[in-house]
């Protein structure tokens, strides 16, 4: 019978399909260029900032780095699963408040947040320890919510995640004794050196990369395109979604903690719709299917916003000062976003990653 088969040159050795094992870490080696390049970009920006020595500019770049963490966190879930989440800023909120609980001086805490449990009232940690715990806390919250929600897909999942955000917001806005309600919680140590933020952003990028090249990341991307076929390939979709949800929740928590330290105050409505949309926009404009897209989206849009603000503030050309009317910045930003999306509907980077070799391989 097998005479009929005009099989091409196959090694019909002991096992019919002979597999050559590739060397260890080939995949990692092939794809690590991307996170390295992205990190170098951020490091370069940071170095320039440090050299200029301007405090407001320093703060601006800190902001950008925090946004990078947010957008990369979003990418981990949205980019790989294709499910648009409106809820992730909720985890940022959890992270930020956790950082506040852990770092505010106990005397202030017991007067402002008397409802906290005693052990927490007594605790005072260094900011980076707090940030790590905040990330864990957000990750655990994501695990709990995710367990319930990851069965959903498509727009139903999006709305459910939004409901999570709204619930977190409502609870944090009104549980006065623990969160201070709608009022700003102050007393969070302000960190104005840029390095911790850089480290956070780079860490987020590497976490996202590690997840993307993991088995879970691949399986999830497959399920994004074709859930039916993925299931028929043995992929447990809710489980893989949950993994991404938890990892990204933790990264968002880390970002939240760092954001709290960058401004020194937290309020629930900082972590609500407008932050949600800005971060989502940055991801989508950059290209939500790619890690590079997320990072580049943040950097470009932030640069654009900054440039427009300078123009609003007034730019002197010769003796004439030329200033845009106030409020033009937002309008221009909106218009530019629409134009970018109209020209490149899948974002600036599409599904591609930046590499040295222009290979199309998407992790």
């Amino acid at each position, binding site marked *: *019978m*097998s005479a*009929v*088969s*005009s*099989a*091409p040159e*196959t090694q*019909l050795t002991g096992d*019919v*399909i*002979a*597999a*050559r*094992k*590739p060397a*260890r870490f*080939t*995949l990692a080696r092939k794809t690590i260029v991307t996170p390295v390049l992205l990190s170098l970009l951020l490091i370069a920006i940071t170095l320039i900032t440090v050299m200029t020595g301007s405090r407001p500019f320093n703060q601006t770049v800190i902001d950008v780095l925090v946004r990078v963490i947010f957008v990369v966190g979003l990418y981990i879930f949205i980019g790989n699963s294709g499910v648009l989440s409106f809820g992730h800023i909720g985890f940022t909120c959890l992270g930020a408040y956790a950082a506040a609980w852990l770092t505010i001086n106990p005397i202030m805490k017991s007067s402002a947040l008397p409802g906290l449990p005693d052990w927490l009232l007594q605790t005072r940690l260094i900011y980076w320890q707090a940030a790590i715990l905040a990330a864990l806390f957000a990750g655990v919250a994501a695990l709990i919510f995710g367990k319930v929600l990851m069965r959903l897909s498509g727009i139903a999942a999006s709305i459910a995640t939004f409901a999570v955000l709204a619930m977190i917001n409502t609870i944090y806005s009104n549980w006065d004794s623990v969160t201070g309600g709608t009022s700003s919680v102050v007393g969070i140590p302000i960190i104005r050196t840029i390095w911790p933020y850089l480290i956070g952003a780079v860490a987020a990028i590497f976490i996202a990369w590690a997840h993307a*090249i*993991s*088995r879970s990341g*691949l*399986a999830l*991307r*497959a399920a*994004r*395109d*074709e859930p*039916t*076929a*993925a*299931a*028929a*390939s*043995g*992929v*447990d*979709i809710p489980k893989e979604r949950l993994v991404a949800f938890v990892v990204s929740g933790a990264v968002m928590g880390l970002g939240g903690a760092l954001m709290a330290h960058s401004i020194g105050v937290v309020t629930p409505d900082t972590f609500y719709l407008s932050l949600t949309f800005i971060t989502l926009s940055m991801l989508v404009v950059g290209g939500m*299917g790619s890690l590079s897209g997320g990072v580049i989206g943040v950097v470009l849009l932030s640069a654009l916003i900054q440039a427009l603000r300078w123009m609003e503030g007034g730019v002197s050309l010769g003796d004439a000062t030329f200033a845009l009317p106030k409020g033009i910045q937002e309008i221009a930003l909106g218009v530019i976003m629409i134009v970018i999306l109209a020209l490149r509907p899948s974002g600036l980077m599409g*599904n591609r990653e930046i590499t040295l070799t222009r290979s*199309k*391989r*998407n992790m």
Partner: protein
Amino acid sequence: MSHLSAENVSVAFAGLKALSAVDLQITPGRISGLIGPNGAGKTTLVNVLTGFQSPSEGAVKLDGEALVGLKPHQVRRRGIARTFQGGRLFRDLPVVDNLEVTGVGLGMSRRAAIAEAEAMLDWIGIASLGSRIAGTLPYTDERRVAIGRALMGRPSYVLLDEPAAGMSGPESKELSALIRRIATDLGCGVLLIEHNVGLVLGLCEHIVVLDSGAIIEEGPPASIRDSEKVRHAYMGTAANTDLPVLEVME
């Protein structure tokens, strides 16, 4: 002897009996055919066998043990693979990754999955397509990639839903050689659904004919070809059976 079987399976969709009391058995190393008019319930039967559809009656058994309430991915992990009537490739992923996903879904490391995927592409004879993005492939290649994806992890059974649709004569000839190798070289039990009757008659040892959800005939190719019932319900004129494949295979 090990086998995958549907026993007394019935499926109803809001009043429509898609399958009624169907029995079917697939054994490793053998190619079985499933033919029948459009809407006969062939795809539905595959869906039942792979956990995408729960039967309203009857059971699916693997080596005599009932597979109840298993999700599709769990069924796949027990060695029952399938392809789809439409290609359903992961369009944004490269071809290798398409295969790799199954490996990963079955619990392999990515490294092992890549190794097997490459070997599998090689075995099928499409190694050169490995780095193409699946969404840009022409039809035939798409089909072969889908088969490769199903074969990852060496399932005991593979159910092919119209793999030759849209293929020209020479192309389906190639495909039929591949399907034969799957049974003989890999020892898979194959269930082949096709409207290219020539292909089915040439390949299968045993053919089941479904009509309106019920088995109307089964047996070896010759008896199916000569069955008046089948000819009436399904085959129509000579143009259909007279396809080039038949000549080659016999």
